[in-house]
């Protein structure tokens, strides 16, 4: 088999891991709270800035920096819920979309104001795994592994814990769960914190591979949203699998055709699927 094709497939799988982690948080929030956080990728951007400043400017060790970034973005998730999502929870979906869309522009402009337009890099260079003619990036491998572990951990949390069960229950029927004594407000806050923490975790992994700048969210936002819709908004397993489908279309399409066309192929696939299964591939 063509070794370069194998390399393209492996790269596609590794990219899928990163996209899956990003999609996980967005799907969790939509599944439970029923609001699409259009600004999710920009919340990841905030996490990347936290990592940059703590690690580069203040010299805090990277693992500790990552934990602090996860905690601070989890807190940001709660703040976003309290200030922006909670007031529009019962509004029309278009108003909710406009509110989170407004947050997107606010975060980008605020980051530009605070940090300028420069591209910043944490300067960590991880080694490369060489197997015969194949080169595999450690930073991508770590991102993939952590993405996978994050997905499994979230799955176990939702299946095995009381709060997880409450979150799943509220995702199924938010009215009835209230009647059963579950504090919806608390569950929303916990979900926003977990969604934020997942964004913080994604920020840790992206900071190893990408420069941070105020518009980094635009690089991932549209693709993540497409993945979530493709897998069925709110369907975490669907989103997880859709991440790998899209990343393979990008990787193999890019290899056989060209990089521009690979994204055209991915979006064409998405549009066609929306005609065939408008609620997503894995919608029940």
């Amino acid at each position, binding site marked *: 088999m063509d070794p370069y094709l194998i390399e393209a497939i492996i790269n596609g799988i590794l990219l899928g891991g990163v996209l899956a982690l990003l999609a996980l948080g967005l799907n969790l929030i939509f599944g439970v709270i029923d609001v699409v956080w259009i600004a999710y990728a920009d919340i990841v951007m905030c996490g990347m800035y936290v990592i940059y400043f703590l690690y580069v400017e203040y010299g805090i060790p990277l693992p500790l920096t990552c934990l602090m970034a996860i905690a601070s973005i989890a807190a940001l998730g709660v703040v976003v819920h309290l200030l922006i999502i909670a007031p529009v929870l019962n509004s029309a979906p278009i108003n909710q979309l406009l509110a989170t869309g407004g947050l997107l522009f606010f975060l980008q402009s605020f980051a530009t104001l605070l940090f300028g*337009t420069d591209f910043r*890099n944490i300067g960590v260079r991880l080694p490369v795994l060489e197997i015969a003619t194949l080169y595999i990036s450690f930073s991508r491998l770590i991102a993939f592994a952590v993405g996978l572990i994050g997905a499994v951990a979230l799955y176990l949390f939702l299946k095995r814990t009381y709060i997880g069960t409450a979150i799943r229950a509220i995702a199924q029927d938010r009215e009835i769960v209230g009647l059963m004594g579950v504090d919806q407000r608390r569950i929303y806050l916990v979900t926003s914190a977990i969604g934020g923490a997942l964004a913080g975790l994604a920020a840790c992994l992206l900071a190893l591979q990408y420069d941070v700048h105020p518009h980094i969210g635009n690089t991932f936002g549209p693709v993540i949203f497409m993945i979530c819709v493709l897998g069925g908004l709110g369907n975490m397993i669907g989103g997880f699998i859709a991440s790998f489908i899209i990343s393979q279309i990008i990787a193999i399409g890019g290899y056989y055709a060209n*990089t521009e066309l690979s994204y055209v192929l991915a979006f064409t696939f998405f549009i066609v699927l929306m005609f065939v299964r408008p609620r997503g591939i894995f919608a029940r």
Partner: protein
Amino acid sequence: MKTSRRTLLKNSAAAAATLSLDWRYASAQAETVRIGVIFDHSGPFAAGGSVASSIGTQIAIDLCNERGGVAGKYKVVPVNADSQSKADAAINEVERLINQEKVDIIDGVYSSAHAVPLAAKVEQQKKILWITTAVATAVFKDKNLKYVFRAQIHSDQYGQAFAGFITENAKAKLGVEPTAVKVALIHEDGPYGVGVAAADEEYSKKAGLNIVMREGYSAAAPDLSALVTKLKRAAPDVISHVGYNPDITLFLRQARESGLRFKMLIGAGAGYSQLDKLRATFGKDIDNFCNIDPVPAQLLDPKKLAPGIGELTNIMVERYKAKANATDVPPHCSMGFNQTWILLNSVLPIAKEKYGGFDAESVRKAALDVDIAPGGTIQGYGVKFFPPGTQLSGQNERSTPVVMQNAGEHISVVYPTNIRTQEPVLPLPKSSVYSM
């Protein structure tokens, strides 16, 4: 003392005349030239050189005003606009400048993707667009523009410099005939990337170079690993890369991690001209990469330029470092400064004194009169605009790019040979992580 009615009237008339004279005098003193200045102060283009260009432009305006203004009399008042790295925002801002701010002259424009629609729009409204930074030849080619001018180089010249540099050094440095040199052309897919890559391809073919791959990509793509894998398969000796900043860092990082090796990488300005930013990310990894762009003024020997030009460069460099808190002065600063300085000092005085004003028609006629010999600007080239009716009407026919090579903070000019400051290091030394 009793004042007669006649005396009172005479004195009043004299006072009124004096006041009137003073007022007219003051009015002449206060006459200003309002110029719209548009750059990307936010979005990805900002750090890709647009802010540097805007700083260069502002330094030129400040310096002109400190010396009395245009023709020593008319102060320049910039009306700034942010195109936000978006073509639609650029168009809206130019609309605002023309229709609300009532400016007749618009200076700036970083991105070719903005320059193409803006040129058509401003031409239609018969106002002046004075492009400082955007390079796509497509802005002018076969458009017969009459109100759009660019003293800056154009993208076809990148292709000429790329092919010329490789051809000249193939035998001596790479040990092979030019026809045996494998080149790959990769580029962002906007007018800038497509324009430069098309020129690279055209002139490489003319020079007989072996083009093994040409591919475009979106500058906002989250992943370029498929592109890198294909480059590994094509195994080019030389890569020409036309990109902005986020895509360049992504490409170089993925290239290193994927084990891509080559003998030389030649950038085409934009992100490759922001050396301090690239160095912050890649350190020595980017040492000995080449870059084609108009020369940063500070690299030229002032003795070979017209009198006073060296001093102008020193002022620009000093002020840029202070304003941007930077150690490097990128070519984009020189582009913004140089083009604006030409407008303020070689065009507008003629417009006012010979053609009667700062309106678009007078400025257009004055621009066509400009005739600056090579060595007469801080970037070394002369200025003479192609007249209407020619293929590149409005483009400077005397602009020239150079090939630069960097090692740490030291940048040398390595092509054209007659003005080079150092022999090129080619292929990349074995110490480079990208070397074959």
